[in-house]
């Protein structure tokens, strides 16, 4: 994370920082925490701050000094008592967890606490999660876990119950849109990217990405194709136009999110709520679609997109998944 993103994240999480300060002041440091918050809320920055606070050699008024040898090495990723785990490819695997536990069941390289941070903890696969659970049940030694997630409900309930939850706040979207427009992003693009991430810096970077602009355009075309209700068209569109731009799973997920937001917009328009839509530039077109769709048919379509997102994570074949999605949306019925 760049320094700019990092500082921004800490500033916007003042309440959380205050709470961590209290934890440190009372020296009631738990064995395990879950930091949850939307993408871009600054979870990694906050976790690093907390790690520094726990290991700082000279904290002043429960704030890490940022200058001691511990703080500096946490910053550079060189502190031997701190381990950071990230998904290896799609998910966090059992091997990664076993390795982590083998490390944590040894005494710290240096005196003092050991800390491990699991980024995207919702992506632990089930055997990884169960391995971690066993370790959380019988923690050995002076060790603190920090799990980061954008989806608290996806964490195994048995893990949830062993961790203290600390929720990060999302930034107010309207003010994010304004600051993006100030930087020269168009109002409609600003509305879209702020739906994708709560972090203004990350949103700005996204708006500059060609591939993202391309995907946004494709999604709007797909909405057109679906709403025209000529089955052949939409399927052809998937194969010729859509798939080449959705090579990676993450691309595909982004595509599905964009599609979801489009249909939420159509619902919002139908209900007369126009203030916070994701595609203000499509207002007229979406108004047209909102008239042709009933609330229940829109519900079916949104459900279908949500289902598709889930299957994407079960590694279903992606072309097949999109084809099924389009067919379902066009027929307005869920295959059961």
């Amino acid at each position, binding site marked *: 994370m760049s320094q700019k993103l990092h500082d921004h994240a800490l500033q916007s999480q003042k309440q959380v920082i205050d709470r961590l300060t209290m934890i440190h002041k009372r020296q009631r440091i738990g064995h395990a925490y879950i930091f949850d918050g939307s993408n871009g809320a600054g979870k990694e920055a906050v976790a690093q701050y907390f790690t520094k606070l726990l290991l700082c050699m000279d904290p002043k008024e429960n704030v890490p000094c940022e200058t001691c040898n511990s703080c500096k090495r946490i910053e550079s990723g060189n502190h*031997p008592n701190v*381990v950071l785990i990230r998904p290896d490819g799609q998910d966090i695997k059992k091997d990664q967890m*076993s390795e982590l536990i083998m*490390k944590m069941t040894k*005494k710290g*390289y*240096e005196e003092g606490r050991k800390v491990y941070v699991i980024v995207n903890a919702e992506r632990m696969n089930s055997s990884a999660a169960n391995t971690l659970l066993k370790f959380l049940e019988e923690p*050995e*030694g002076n060790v603190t876990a920090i799990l980061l997630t954008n989806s608290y409900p996806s964490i195994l309930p048995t893990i949830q119950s062993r961790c203290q939850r600390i929720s990060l706040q999302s930034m107010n979207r309207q003010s994010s849109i304004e600051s993006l427009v100030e930087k020269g992003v168009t109002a409609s693009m600003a509305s879209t990217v702020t739906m994708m991430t709560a972090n203004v810096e990350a949103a700005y970077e996204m708006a500059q990405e060609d591939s993202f602009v391309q995907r946004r355009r494709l999604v709007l075309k797909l909405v057109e194709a679906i709403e025209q209700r000529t089955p052949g068209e939409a399927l052809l569109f998937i194969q010729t136009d859509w798939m080449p731009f959705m090579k990676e799973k993450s691309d595909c997920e982004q595509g599905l999110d964009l599609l979801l937001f489009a249909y939420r917009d159509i619902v919002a328009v139908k209900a007369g709520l126009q203030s916070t839509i994701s595609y203000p530039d499509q207002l007229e077109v979406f108004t047209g679609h909102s008239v042709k769709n009933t609330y229940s048919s829109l519900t079916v379509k949104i459900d279908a997109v949500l289902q598709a997102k889930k299957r994407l994570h079960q590694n279903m074949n992606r072309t097949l998944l999109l084809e099924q999605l389009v067919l379902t949306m066009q027929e307005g019925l869920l295959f059961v």
Partner: protein
Amino acid sequence: MQFEIMRDRLLDGLSDVVKAISSKVTTPILTGIKLEITEKGLTMTGSDSDITISTFIPVEEDGTQIIQTIQPGTLVLQAKVFNEIIRKLPTNEVMIELRDGMKTHIRSGQSEFHIIAQSADEYPILPDVKDAERFEMPADLMKSLIRETVFAVSQQETRPVLTGVQWIMKEHELYCIATDSHRLARRIVTPEIQANSPFNAVIPGKSLQELSKILPDDSTAVEIFIANQQVLFKLHNVLFYSRLLEGNYPDTSRLIPIEYKTSITINGRNLLQAIDRASLLAREDRNNIVHFSTDGSPHVQISSNSPDVGNVEELVEAVDIEGEPLKISFSAKYMMDALKAIDGQDLKIHFTGSMRPFILKSIDSEAILQLILPVRTF
């Protein structure tokens, strides 16, 4: 920082340090080697975070100048690059100098390399050890006690503390104990120099195996310091550190039987070979099991069968058999491991029933004890 050093001595030192360097580390600084030059000499340190190896090269040895320290200092250099460069330098004189921030110059003959160093402040801090914690034994004894115990540690992470060997000092005797809960190996030694404070530590089996590789096969003294977080083995100019395991080692003393129903004295080598032959027919995908029985004759019978392959039977002559007749089955591997640890001599095996742990000892020493749990048959 600036110093000049003999290349061959630098390479010698490096060859030990790089043993601790792993390409799999997640901490960036540990891809490097720490160099610390003082008026006394050069210390180089490498680590994979579990083990750390330091070597010291003195400025002068037996009247020969090895190093010339021009300006003391510390830095961290990429291990792989540094090692490769030193290996390929053209002459035996090497000049290493840190200039303009982190730029390191390595000069030898006509060639000069520039590599970027990292700050030594980023490097992990090694534990302080106190002389009170020190005890001592010869390297060859240490090597054999590792060999006699470490094979019995658990290979599974389900009970992490069992992946280590317990070192515990009781009444001036050092007990080294390893168990994976199916078998146990125990070695007792009396160190020549004793620690002043008692200790009870669990050393990872992997670390001991690594240590064993750098120990010489002679009676060079090894000093051992057991600190809070780590243990240090000090050997002439090489320091070997290992992190200790967290958690309490189970009390194993009550598991060792003291009353026996059947006791057999037998030649270890003969028995080992017979078990080895019997296990030939075992299927590779499962623990291979051999059956062991006595029937009042002066022989023990070893047999094994595998429905797909066939069966094997063999009689091994015993020196002496006392007590009840016995039928017991056990893992051929565990038995062979135990017999190899006791090494060839005539030995005694004490049984207390076919479903109870049994023990093996040399006939003339109590120092090594091997215990095996049998298998239940259905």
